[in-house]
Every structure is written in C-alpha cells, then in structure tokens.
C-alpha cells in the first residue's frame, strides 16, 4: 500500500497543519511517512506545496515522481492546477473553491473550474462556509482534510484520533471544533 498526496496552497494558508495531522495518523498506524515541505522565502504569499508519502514499506524519495500522486488536496483552486503533472491518471483532485487573489493577473474563476473538471475525478469543497458552520474560519483546513478523507488511505477514525492528539494542547474546545469541521467536510462530498 502506498499513497502519494500533494497538498497545495499559498504561503501562510497553513497547509502544514493538514500534512502534520496526516503524518500523525500514519505514524499512529505504524506506517512509513515522508513529507517534504517548503520553508523560507516562498512562504511570503508565494505558491507552496507539500509532497506527502505514506506506505507500509520503505519510501525512498522525499519527492513524488510525476504521474504518481493519488491525491491533490488544494486549499486554493488555482493552486490545484499547478501540480497536475504529478497527478496519477486515476488520481483525485479535492479543492477548496475560495480563491486567494494576491496577484493582479489571477485567472477567471470559471476557467479554473473548467480546467479542474477536465481532470475527471474532482471534488469542489465550499470550505469557508463549512468552517463557519463548524464554528470558526480557522477550521478551514480540517474541513478540507475531512473532504479528502476517503482518498488518504487511512481510516476516518484514525484521522480523527490524530486530530485529537494534534490539537489536544490547545484544549478540548479546539479539538471538538476541528472534529466537527472534519465531519462536516467528510459529509459534504
């Protein structure tokens, strides 16, 4: 079993939170994990991504080879397209619908949707509204994790357990908020 995931977004959006929760879940399941991330300059509002690999046998490369990503999980719609060369022919794109426009040549939103639809297997998630429903916009990333949960290769129970351990230091209220967000995301698809 091997799952390759690219988590994509814009610097400052917190893609590493999602990566850390999946890492934790995988480790708690006794799986191997490799997770390459972007630090430094690009984090200032630039495009950022994390290559995340989970497997029950040894993982060599920290980077996912082209055409081998089972899932692109994007926190921002245009960013889901930037990593298409990595997507496997039967791979899944799960993306938030809310654009992050910090550039003045941001493409037309419908054109982005059309391109995403061309990939065949895709899910649009209105994460902002779902996070609000869960109780806090900050739960945006856990909503996205919930929406992608079927394609991560780890059970939802295990992911929820990881959410608990990830947020436990911040108190029970934050844990519950994120569990709720995760479930709303999972139910939305």
């Amino acid at each position: 079993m091997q799952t390759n995931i690219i988590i994509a977004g814009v610097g400052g959006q917190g893609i590493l939170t999602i990566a850390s929760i999946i890492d934790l879940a995988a480790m708690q399941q006794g799986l191997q994990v490799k997770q390459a991330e972007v630090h430094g300059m690009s984090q200032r509002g630039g495009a950022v991504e994390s290559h995340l690999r989970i497997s029950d046998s040894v993982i060599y490369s920290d980077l996912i080879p082209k055409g081998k990503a089972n899932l692109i999980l994007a926190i921002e719609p245009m960013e889901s397209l930037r990593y298409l060369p990595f997507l496997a022919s039967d791979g899944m794109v799960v993306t938030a619908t809310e654009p992050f426009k910090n550039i003045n040549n941001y493409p037309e939103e419908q054109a982005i949707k059309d391109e995403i639809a061309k990939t065949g297997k895709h899910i649009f998630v209105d994460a902002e509204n779902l996070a609000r429903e869960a109780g806090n916009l900050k739960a945006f990333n856990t909503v996205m994790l919930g929406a992608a949960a079927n394609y991560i290769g780890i059970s939802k129970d295990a992911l929820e357990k990881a959410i608990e351990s990830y947020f436990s230091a911040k108190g029970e209220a934050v844990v519950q908020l994120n569990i709720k967000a995760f479930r709303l995301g999972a139910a939305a698809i």
Partner: protein
Amino acid sequence: MDTQLLLGAEAIALAAIDAGISGVYAYPGTPSTEITEYIQQSPIARQKGVHSTWATNEKTAYEAALGMSYAGKRSLVCMKHVGLNVAADAFLNSAITGVNGGMVVVVADDPSMHSSQNEQDTRVYGKFAFLPVIEPSNQQETYDAIRYAFDLSEQQNLPVLFRVTTRLSHSRAVVKQQPPREENILNPSKEKRKWILLPANARNNYQQLLEKQTTLASLSEQSFLNKTIAGNGTKAIIAFGIAYNYVMEVKQAENLDIPVLKISQYPLPDKLIKEFTDKYDDILIAEEGYPAYEEYLKGYFGNKKFRGRLDGALPRTGELSPDVVAKAMGVESDTFRTIPSIVAGRPPMLCQGCSHRDVFDALNAIFAEYPEQHVFSDIGCYTLGALPPFNAINTCVDMGASVTMAKGAADAGLHPAVAVIGDSTFTHSGITGLLDAVNDKSAITLIISDNSTTAMTGGQDSAGTGKLAEICKGIGVEESHIRTFVPLKKNHDENVIILKEELEYKGVSVIIAQRECVQTASRKKRQENKK
C-alpha cells in the same frame, strides 16, 4: 527508544543533543535555520544548559564553536552554503589547527536555489580543506551519522563537515532515537603549539593533515554510510548522498536489477570505488550539486564509462528528482498532464503592512527628482523590493554588499549612492563596510530598514536590536547625519523630506527606518495573549 517524525534539520539537532553537545552556534539561513531553533526549543537542551543563542554571523559562530572545542566540549556550528563563504577563513584554518572536543560543521546546500543566490556545493569545500565529509541520504541516517561524526571528530582531532541539502533538511520522516550521551567535561587543550598558526607550527600541522588522508580514506572504506547494493548486468550506478533515494525509488518502482554503490562519506573509499568501477563499463554518477566526483572519477581525459551531469545524462544544474534520475536510468517516461496555461505565477511578496513597503514608497518618491536612480541592496525580505510594484532596488549580491557597493559607486562619482540593508544583515556584514565609508568620507546614504528581527528566515533575534544608532555613532558617523524615522503611510511626506536632506549631504549619512516586522509583532502578541 523513542521514534518521532522529524525534519532532517531536526534530526541533526536531536542527534547533536543526544551526542552531548554543550553548544550550537549559527546565523539563521534557509535551509539550516531549523537546526538551531529545535535546540533552542528543546526542553532537554535547556535543562542541560546547552548554549544556543544566535551569532552575529557565520564566522563568529564558527570561531565560537572552535573555542568550545578547544575547551574540550562538543560543539555544533550550522549554516547555509553561502554562510560557509563567510566562515571560510576560520573553516580552512580549523583544518590546520584541528580540534579538541568533537566539532561538527553542518552546512545546508540549496541546489535549485529555492532561497539562495547560488548553488555552490559544500563537498568541494570539504576537499579543499582536506576534511572528512558526511552526506547522509535520509533522516534516520542523518541522526545516526551526526552521532558518528562527533566520535570521528574526536578520534581524528578534526572538525567533520556535514552536508545536507534543502530536500533532506525540510522533509520529515520517522526517526528512531538512541540513548543520550553525557557532555564532555571541561578539558582545555594542553597542546599549546598546534593552535598557534605561526608558519613553523602551521607547516607541521598541515603535513600531519595530509598524512591523515590515508586514514580518513580507510575509515570511509569501513563506514556504515558507504555500501554496495547488489545487482546484475553491465550497467551500474554510483549514488552520492540524497541522490541514492532517487536511484532506489526508480530501481524499486521499475523493478530494475542494477547494482548501486552508495557513497555518503568522503574522502572517497578508494578500494570500494575501484572494485566497483572495474566491474562495469557503463556507470551513471548521480550526485546532488556540482558534478564534483563525476569530474574526479572521469579524470582529465574523460573516461567514457562514466555518465552524469557532465555529458547531459542528468541536468547540469538544479536539484535532482526521481523523474530526471529515471530518465538517466533509461526508464521511458509516461506522458503526464501539463499545467494549464491559465495558471499564473505566484511569486513571494512583502507582507501587507510590512515596513519595507513604506521605505520603498518613500525612496521611489524622492528618486523621481534624480536623473540617476540606483539603489544598492542586500539579502533579506526587502530583496523583494526588486519586484513590482516597487522595482526599487538594483543589486543583491551577498550579505553586506549594499554598503560597500554603494561606497564604490560613490567613489566612482555616482550621486546619489544609496544603500538599503536590513538590521540583521547590517550587523552580520554591513558594519565594517560602513567604517570604510566613514574613513574615506564617501558620499553614501545608508538606509537601515530596521524591523528588529531576522525576518526572512522566520523572525530570529537580531544582534543589533536597540543599538543601531549607537553603533553608527561609535564607528564615526556624524550624529547629525544619523536620522531615524518611522516608515508608516502617515509619515510619508515627512520621511521623504528626511531622505532628501540626507541624499544631498556629501558624506556618510545613515537613516534608520524603524518599525517592527508585522509577523514577529503579531506572534509576540499571540504569545502574550496566551499568558
């Protein structure tokens, strides 16, 4: 023992703590920053009293680590590749003095220049200094190799150079910890002569260093870091450091029966290399960075059996990837989806509300009045002032070069000669250049865009916080030409006037544009709210 998910950088830090270091010395630089940060935040390191404050620059860091080693304790010094250029004088000479307590020099290279000005390959420095070099391929090996490097350093009385690259430093994997070791006792070096590099001593030490090379090579022969992975056929691969991962990825995915020699310790294990290379007549050399060892193995007249970055089997520049390695291994690539043409670039940019923005706005406003509009700048977040909408700076060469390049241009007659530098970069390498300008009475205007932190690497402490005006005064800048303003929109007009006055002054003037980085300010606020 414990297993945990660690970045390569964190694996280095944890291993160093477990190896019994008494201090880490560093100036922040991507991709090496997280090593020192991890030690600073480690409760165990804090409890042990491991020294871990930031140094003013890589040279002072290096020399302090060497001093700690002189005192008999284990020390770690960390920097990014270009930082080693700053510390190069101390580094090369420390190979001649040797060490007392174990000393490991971690240098994080940045092939593909994710956040750097060049791609230099630190292994070349290792060869240049005749020091052992270790280049692990994964996070667990990184942990194990750091512990080994400290032992090696003490056994051989030499600093050990430890090279990682961005990919390893910033990638996480599960790492298993080993039992920690106690710190060394204070035991200052009794070998009085070896540390004094007067010619007579230095010649002697240098001779000894050269004589050690055979021992170092034979240690590589036996090292757990170098090994052969069996396979059949006439084609083979020598994979160095992290390149090993890409080779093995392809070998595993494609089920290739191809022999691989993995090298992670230098100087090269001669026997191992000879035995391996004699057996095959087509050998791919996969190394991250320069074709340093490909060139060496090929020899001057170009032994045809070696392929790699020199003959185009692999790209000459940039970071390796599983895809380029697969192609070099003869694997036909499938066709992949392409990036749709509507996808726009999203370059990094200054944060909203960043003080550098107001500095550049003021500068651009005043420049409209001058025929010559050139700004010498430096390395930090403000380098992003080169991009639209500011287009406000013309140079970024190395730490501190803004000051001295402006001086040179002023000496050539350019007016105004303006330099923009951050507070951390100013104390790192700008001070001495400013002293030159003062001594020569060069007509430069230096703007220190002071946000009280080392912002680009994530907001580490800056050595000159609260002292910049005093420093400038102390090295002789006239007090009336040390001006301070607050870069805010509402002060724009006032700030433009101050700039105008100082640009017109035909001597050294310094303008300190003082406002805290909004990122560190909001982080501090969050931490205070928590309390």
